[in-house]
């Protein structure tokens, strides 16, 4: 498995810039998520890495080998970049074993591993099906499999020829919510088990944060931030990233040193991301604690709206005694109703961004 390096990759389709000077390092043996809203260019990025789209400018190397650059274009079949598309795209005319063995057939050139003999290929197919938990399903037709099973066959098919990189394009978007979490976990453990260099493209924050070793946040063709999931969530580089990777509570405030003064009091800051003066302080909803007992220390707030999610409840509040009105969102398990008056306090440090 190898690392992938993109430098200054730019691609326009007519007037639309899909990729704008993208620099990105995908570490060997790690799972990187490319996270962004639809239309941000993340799928184009993936197709550039796989060799289906030629960028206008910039270079791509796999394991130090230049595969895309000025006057250089290694065709997809010689790159060793295997793709798992949305909805699997299994070959409908082949059974599961033939699907998984597709990349093992004789005639493969220019790839490490070379072509395998018939018996070795058969063993490899069995090994891969076992890996994805579908041992014994080799003679099924693709249409006899559930959506989750199809996705796992697609993964086994991509991994069978020992590619240098696996790229997954929104692989779970076609699955229903319950199945999605399960297949996500299975795919993650398979990729970790074999130490694959993998890229997963997604617009689902939860998916990116829970699966990946590192997350690259994209918007309008640019990579805004590339860091560990914890860092991307807790210390986003700018307001755009902060808003995109999770719900955000935004409070106008004044920064001085490591402290920001807001309607919710003086809050400590996570490092310095803005100059002293008026800023926008940002918190995650789970940092706002709601307490139904008013006598406790805290700021008073009025419950406007309650959205029940099962595992917790999202509460929209208006802070009392603050002009102009400030609205915040909190996560809580307390049984609240619109119209209740509550006390709120803040846990942990805030972020501050230039206003």
């Amino acid at each position: 498995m190898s690392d992938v390096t993109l430098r200054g990759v730019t691609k326009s389709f007519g007037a639309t810039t899909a990729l704008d000077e993208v620099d990105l390092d995908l570490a060997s043996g790690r799972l990187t998520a490319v996270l962004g809203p639809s239309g941000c260019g993340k799928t184009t990025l993936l197709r550039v890495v796989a060799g289906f789209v030629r960028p206008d400018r910039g270079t791509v190397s796999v394991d130090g080998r230049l595969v895309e650059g000025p006057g250089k274009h290694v065709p997809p079949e010689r790159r060793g970049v295997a793709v798992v598309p949305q909805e699997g795209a299994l070959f409908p005319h082949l059974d599961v074993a033939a699907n998984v063995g597709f990349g093992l057939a004789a005639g493969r050139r220019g790839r490490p591993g070379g072509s395998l003999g018939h018996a070795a290929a058969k063993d490899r197919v069995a090994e891969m099906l076992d890996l994805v938990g579908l041992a014994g399903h080799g003679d099924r037709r693709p249409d006899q499999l559930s959506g989750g099973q199809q996705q796992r066959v697609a993964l086994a098919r991509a991994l069978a020829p020992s590619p240098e990189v696996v790229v997954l394009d929104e692989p779970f978007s076609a699955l229903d919510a319950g199945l999605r979490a399960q297949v996500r976990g299975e795919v993650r453990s398979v990729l970790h088990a074999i130490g694959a260099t993998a890229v997963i493209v997604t617009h689902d924050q939860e998916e990116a944060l829970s699966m990946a070793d590192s997350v690259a946040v994209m918007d309008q063709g640019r990579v805004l931030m590339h860091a560990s999931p914890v860092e991307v969530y807790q210390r986003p580089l700018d307001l755009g990233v902060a808003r995109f990777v999770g719900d955000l509570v935004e409070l106008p405030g004044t920064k001085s040193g490591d402290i920001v003064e807001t309607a919710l009091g003086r809050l400590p800051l996570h490092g310095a991301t803005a100059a002293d003066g008026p800023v926008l302080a940002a918190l995650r909803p789970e940092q706002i604690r709601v307490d139904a007992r008013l006598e406790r220390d805290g700021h008073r707030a009025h419950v406007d709206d309650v959205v029940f999610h099962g595992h917790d409840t999202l509460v929209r509040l208006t802070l009392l005694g603050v002009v102009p009105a400030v609205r915040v969102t909190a996560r809580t398990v307390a049984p609240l109703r619109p119209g209740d008056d509550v006390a709120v306090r803040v846990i942990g440090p805030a972020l501050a961004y230039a206003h």
Partner: protein
Amino acid sequence: MVRAVEAGDRVGRILLRPSTIELVGRSLGLVVVVTGLCLVIGVGVAALVTRTSLPGRRWVGALAALPLAVPSYVAAFAWIAAVPWARGFVGAAIVLTLCTYPYVLLPVAAAMRGVDPAQEEVARSLGRGPWRTFWSVTVRQTWPAAASGALLVALYTLSDFGAVSLLQYDVFTRAIHTSYRASFDRTPAAVLSLLLVVLTVLIALGERRSRRGLEQARIGSGVSRRSDRIRLGRWAAAFSSVAVLAVLGLALVFPVASLLYWFATGLSAGIDAGRLVTSAGTTILFAVLGALVTMALAVPVGVLVARYRSRTSSAIELAAWAGHALPGIVVALALVFFGVRVAQPIYQRTPLLLIAYAVLFLPAGVGAVRAAVAMSSPRVEEVARSLGSSPLDVLRRVTLPLAAPGIAAGTALVVLTIMKELPATLLLRPTGANTLATSLWTETGVAAYAAAAPYALALVVLAVAPTLWLMHAQGRLAATEDL
């Protein structure tokens, strides 16, 4: 074209002759009447079969498409041999309508099955009754299908040569053939051909215009369901059944009965069995060879058009579409000129005939291949590339195996159409070779109905098998627009 340009100022005189203007009027009159009747019958039967509780609708649906297997000149022969007064306009209109209404029926039936029932349910829930919903939602959505079917009918009518000749109704094709046969001066034939092509293109453009703004995409990925059928009352059911039976009787039972009658009459006089077998053999040979040549060209073009959207591929598609519109007699005449002037060695030999077939039926072949290739997702091919297959490998291991049923259906379609083809075969066949179609033509030319009947019957029997298979394949492929 070259012929017409060489003639120079004589073109104007030929065009302005009263007989030419009369010819335009007769041709257009026939086209309008036949297309109108086909729309009524095709949409009506399609609605009855797909959307009502008509008794025996499955059988009706299968049988109603069968007239496709009956070449128009065979039907014309069956009619004229049974009812001698069926000459001229009335006969031509009846025969062509009964032969071509499946071109409307098949795509409309497919479209009616495909209409999202949710839209009809929405219309009902917004206060429209079942009939108003049917007219305002269902029929409107099937209009593109009906229009493309009507276009095929109009083009078929305009380019039909066999039926109008047998029924002695003078339209373009017959006039072209007569003037080509009548004199060594081929200029009038060339000018008339050019005029016919212009008319054809105008009709095709008109159809495109009528569809503008009606193209529709299905929004969202809803699961397709079947709509509820409209329950017919007793009287409505009886009336519909009688109407449908009348159509089937006139289009299928009557011609076949007439052919059988004349066949039986001929039996007593003895049949030239040797010639019948040779003709059938030649028909099959030409059809298979022609289909192979056509499909050998159609597969690469179809894959290209389906997979690589570019100006070139659009141009190729447009050329193929234009080919749809070229009447057989015009292509045949063009190739006669070509053979006489440029390709003397292959004139009136098999290669030139095969070229004619390829020119005439390449559009049908390309359409079938394109539809079959377009049905599978390009993502599947990209996966194959990323797994180490070169583009040619992908074509061999993925694209073609996936498209195989569609390509086979396209081949059957071309075989079927070549078997039924008359004017090009008549003008370009190798000296001394006779197909079922040309033998039939020769015998009916001298009103030897009993002698002609065996050829007609053999042709229908040969054509039925691929037709049935095609209808079956289309159930799966829904590629009706290319029939």
